[in-house]
């Protein structure tokens, strides 16, 4: 029978006879994840459900990342309750200083393998699609149910297959590709669907770039963004995981809701202007827009690839005197490797702040929120009104090249104006 990749994954995780778009099925989880925001709300719900223990201690993992290091006493209380709960239930806990931003971390740590189903108490759980897993974001009550029973109800999604063909231009990254997709299908274009990324351009992306693409699938409304596993996936997983997996892909004649092709030669560096990730325009069209703060980090673009790109721009240059630049390595491992490569030194020398791994200011929590009238250029995934602070602030989303160039120029510029494109070719 002809099946899409997501149908194959869900079929392997359900007892339901019928797995076709629109059917409601119960789906078994391989991993259930939550953080200091979604976890504590879920624990209370789980208790009220009457469940005293989790369905499988080996399959539950908690990460302290949103309000870390504790922003205030209330946040410290949340973090305390998260840790205490993990100890009481005997599940894996990545505490402060031991992990980092959940989605980058779980990939690094081998929790995510192709074909797995991962329920996460965070909308960007779709990031795991980068490794061919059905990672999907759920709310706290869903999560409570997952913790208790190891499954969730799911309306089987359809698939929008996106073919990336050709070769990227200099200074174009995974970020630009997903912004191009969102611009094409709209911020609600993926509701009730998964995005599936195929084609020579998709296969040529590194895992870091795939993380950036899959991460923003939810910004198109989609449940996840799947990259079928390939050699790149296998190479990344080697030494990280002992979980069994096998590579699957959609049958060529499977039924897709929509198929679209994006020619990579046609995609320039892009930005998403306030106040929607769908408000996408070429960086050239935003040129000259004054910037007060640059933020390089988050679960989409706080990888080593991003930090290397930012460092390439900032090496030997200074952050514009009017600008604050904040660099947030996504995980401890990324931080440490950046340190080894001298990237942290480059950032400090340029006058940037290097923050600990945290979700921090990305969601307006702490560690770099914006004042009214301020404008930020960030590598994050959301630029909703007030997302990073004051309701009167603005956020532009872009890749790390563009963000770092804005830090130097004090305004939006094409990174090609600062760095030669040969340099951009290597990553």
């Amino acid at each position, binding site marked *: 029978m002809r099946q899409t990749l997501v149908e194959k994954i869900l079929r392997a995780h*359900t*007892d*339901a*006879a*019928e797995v076709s778009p*629109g*059917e*409601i*099925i*119960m789906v078994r989880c391989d991993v259930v994840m939550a953080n200091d*925001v*979604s976890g*504590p*709300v879920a624990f*209370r*719900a789980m208790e*009220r*459900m*009457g*469940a005293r223990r989790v369905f499988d201690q080996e399959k539950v993992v908690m990460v302290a990342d*949103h*309000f870390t290091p504790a*922003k*205030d006493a*209330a*946040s410290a*209380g*949340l973090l305390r309750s998260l840790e205490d709960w993990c100890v009481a239930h005997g599940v894996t806990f990545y505490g402060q200083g031991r992990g980092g931003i959940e989605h980058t971390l779980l990939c690094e740590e081998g929790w995510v393998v192709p074909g797995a189903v991962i329920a996460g108490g*965070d*909308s960007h759980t779709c990031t795991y699609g980068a490794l061919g897993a059905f990672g999907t*974001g*759920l*709310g*706290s*009550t*869903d999560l*409570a*149910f997952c913790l*208790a*029973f190891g499954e969730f*109800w799911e*309306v089987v999604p359809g698939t929008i297959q996106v073919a990336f063909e050709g070769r990227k231009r200099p200074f174009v990254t995974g970020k630009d590709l997903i912004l191009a997709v969102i611009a094409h299908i709209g*911020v*609600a274009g993926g*509701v*009730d669907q998964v995005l599936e990324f195929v084609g020579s351009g998709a296969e040529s992306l590194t895992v870091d770039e795939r993380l950036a693409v899959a991460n923003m699938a*939810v910004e198109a*409304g989609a*449940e996840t963004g799947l990259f079928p596993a390939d050699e790149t996936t296998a190479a990344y997983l080697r030494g990280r995981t002992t979980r069994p997996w096998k590579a699957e892909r959609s049958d060529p004649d499977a039924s897709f809701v929509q198929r679209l092709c994006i020619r990579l030669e046609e995609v320039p560096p892009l930005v998403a202007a306030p106040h929607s990730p769908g408000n996408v325009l070429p960086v050239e069209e935003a040129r000259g827009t004054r910037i007060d703060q640059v933020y390089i980090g988050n679960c989409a673009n706080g990888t080593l690839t991003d930090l290397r790109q930012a460092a390439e721009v900032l090496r030997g240059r200074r952050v514009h005197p009017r600008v604050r630049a904040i660099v947030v390595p996504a995980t401890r491992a990324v931080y440490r490797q950046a340190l080894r490569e001298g990237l942290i030194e480059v950032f400090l020398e340029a006058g940037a702040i290097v923050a600990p791994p945290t979700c921090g200011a990305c*969601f*307006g*929590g*702490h560690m770099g*929120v914006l004042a009214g009238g301020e404008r930020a250029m960030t590598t994050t995934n*959301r630029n*909703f*009104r*007030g*997302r990073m602070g004051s*309701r009167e602030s603005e956020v532009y989303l872009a890749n790390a090249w563009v963000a770092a160039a804005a830090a130097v120029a004090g305004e939006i510029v094409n990174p090609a104006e600062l760095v030669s494109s040969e340099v951009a070719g290597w990553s």
Partner: protein
Amino acid sequence: MVVEGTALVIPGDHVDTDVLYPGPYLNIVDPQQMKRYLFEGLDPGLRDRLREDTILVVGENFGAGSSREHVPLAMQAWGIRCVLGRSFARIFYRNCINLGLLAVSCREGAEAARDGSWLRIDTGSGLVEVDGRRFRMRALPDFLLEIVRAGGLEAWARGRLAGQSSRVEAGQASQRR
């Protein structure tokens, strides 16, 4: 299931969970405290217009963005029992159903409603009445209705743990949304 009430229209499409409940207040776990920040990034004045029988009327892709259940939890803490929308973002929609908060998609009905409109939503007949005019809602699958009727996924789960509600098996839960 029938819900009747008065419309409060939240204008616009793609209204995101960040404006509905901004990030800085995510360190709150008690819904009675969450309710103070509902609509804080959108229009805090909306809180003063909530009545006992308010049914929120919303646009396209309402609740886009974050998985934060704080939004429907705060709505529920205000006594809101139903949201009528042109369409909903996935996680927000799930969260509503899981909390026993009826979320109904009905494009024409949501467009017809004005502030103060009298609404009657009947999941049995599948009809949304707006000041006497009738519109057909997007059918709510029996399984989701069962969760809402139980009072949400918590109550439904309690039933399952107590063995009162059998495990949802293939075929039994299988139905189209």
